[in-house]
């Protein structure tokens, strides 16, 4: 095994620090953090695709699948163990992503965006019309357990956060390696110049396919965690505007560092909580204006503020 590098040590350090700080934090903050981390995971999937040059307006598909897997597993299969539920979500999502990926990764630009949007809306359409699943209202997630913990009796907000931190840390550590690995660089190479990639002997299709399926799985984990924390799932998880939010957060954070999506998701979640309270009819406008400003002035996301290199062209 490789030596852990500085990034990995910082990630572990931050995770531990947050976990400890959470013990002394008010419930609303704990809940917000859990939501932010879960959202960050979903956004991570969008970022993985962006590194390969693809923008998905349909990440909500996997987010929703992960959420509904938790909901359905608990309600209809009687499963309560959180990790099993999350695993269920991942399995279902990977199965679907492996099928869709064969088609979707052959497209680029607008068409990839539209196709991913379409599949997400297909799920939305199915769920809205399923009366057995509560149609537009969705349904509540039953109490869950984790090892010795039972959400009926224990501090479920705290436990949800611990679980989220643990999962996010593992995934972040994996992705830190992934982004620096051959396939991670191959994805960036595809973004930069597909012709050259072919002439190097790399299969673009295989590279993008693997990347797509992993991004889907991670999105699913984010959706499952959201369901566990919020206690509710509904079809809007697959509506295209939610995917649009994920794209916004991905752009806000940038693709430069594995921690960026989590930080951006935290900023987003915090601002949204306040904005919805203070100016509910201006929240979308704020999103839109910030998005334009980032595209105009900070195209590499706010992370680029911390990593401006002198002299290197960017």
């Amino acid at each position, binding site marked *: 095994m490789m030596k852990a590098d500085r990034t990995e040590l910082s990630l572990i350090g931050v995770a531990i620090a947050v976990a400890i700080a959470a013990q002394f934090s008010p419930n609303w903050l704990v809940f917000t953090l859990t939501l932010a981390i879960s959202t960050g995971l979903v956004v991570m999937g969008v970022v993985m695709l962006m590194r390969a040059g693809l*923008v998905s307006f349909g990440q909500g598909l996997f987010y929703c699948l992960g959420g509904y897997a938790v909901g359905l597993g608990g309600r209809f299969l009687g499963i309560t163990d959180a990790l099993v539920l999350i695993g269920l979500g991942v399995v279902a999502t990977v199965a679907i992503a492996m099928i869709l990926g064969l*088609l979707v990764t*052959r*497209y*680029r*630009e*607008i*068409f990839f*965006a*539209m*196709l991913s*949007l*379409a*599949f997400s*809306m*297909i*799920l*939305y*359409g*199915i769920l*809205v*019309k*399923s009366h057995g699943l509560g149609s537009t209202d969705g349904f509540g997630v039953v109490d869950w357990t984790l090892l010795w913990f039972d959400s009926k009796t224990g501090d479920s907000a705290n436990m949800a956060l611990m679980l989220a931190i643990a999962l996010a840390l593992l995934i972040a550590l994996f992705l830190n390696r992934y982004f620096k690995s051959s396939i991670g660089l191959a994805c960036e190479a595809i973004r930069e110049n*597909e012709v050259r990639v072919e002439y190097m002997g790399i299969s*673009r*299709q295989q590279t993008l396919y693997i990347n797509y399926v992993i991004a889907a799985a991670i999105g699913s984990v984010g959706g499952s965690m959201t369901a566990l924390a919020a206690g509710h799932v509904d079809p809007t998880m697959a509506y*295209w*505007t939610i995917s*649009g939010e994920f*794209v916004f957060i991905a*752009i806000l954070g940038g693709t430069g560092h594995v921690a960026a999506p989590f930080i951006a998701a935290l900023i987003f979640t915090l601002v949204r909580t306040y904005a919805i309270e203070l100016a509910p*009819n*201006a*929240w*979308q*406008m704020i*999103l*839109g*204006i910030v*998005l*334009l400003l980032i*595209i*105009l002035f900070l195209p590499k996301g706010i992370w680029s503020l911390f990593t401006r290199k002198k002299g290197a062209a960017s």
Partner: protein
Amino acid sequence: MLTVWAILIDGFIYASWLFLVAAGLTVIYGVMRILNMAHGSLYALGAYAAASALGWYYADGGDQLWMAFAIIAVCAVAIGAVTGLAIERGLLRIMYGRDEILMLIITFAVLLILEDVMKLVWGTTPYFAYQPYAAMGRINIDVLTVSRYDLMVLVVSIVIGVGLWFWLERTRIGKILRSIIHDREVSKAMGVNVGRMFTITFMIGATLGAIAGGITAPIISVVPGIGIEVIVLAFAVVVTGGLGSITGAAIGAIIVGLARATSIHTMPELELFIIYAVMAAVLVFRPHGLFGQAVARKI
């Protein structure tokens, strides 16, 4: 057999509405290579403008149907043209030459902004302007009844479709636009003022969107979010038919319209998903849509 007639009538009426909504979107893409997500907002702006103006008119005691249509037309064209001009000149102009997907995201930002602008201007309570719709009544086709207003929308849609075709094929400006569609660099080299053509095109596309919204105002309750719902339908239609093609938008609208009508009359649970399923299915076999020209697939 009755069902078949119902499907055909409903399907074509819905298709005509879809075409109205999608026409402006596809024209803008064809000339400027921008998939304008804010088109949904233009639709909503047209609906709000028409609904509020009609509201004043009828509250003032007005009752002339032709006047109502005039109001719809004037409001829609005015708000569409002005907003279109503002967006194109104020924002898009600075961003030209960027990636298509980035332009899509930029128009997404505009959509978000305009959604809230509408909330701030018109509030969140629904607007109703059903008077023209009700005044036109219904007619019977055999045992089915159809609203005359819906038939009028069908006619307007055909007129606009033919008008667009004529404008692109027969007028001077249309020919210039087709040359830009074909090859932007070459037409620039031949002296075409591409910048001005872009502005004109965007304004026309935006106006078409607003007109679609204005005409629809008497049929629906005008509330926040109608733009967001409509834009995904418009996407489904233009992507199915082929981005940039008016014929494509028409055929795409017909296919989606009939598919939806079929679903409603036979398997209503599929109604929402059938539209996107059709779009995905078409893209599998024709990666750039039925009449599209752009290169969509890389492999």
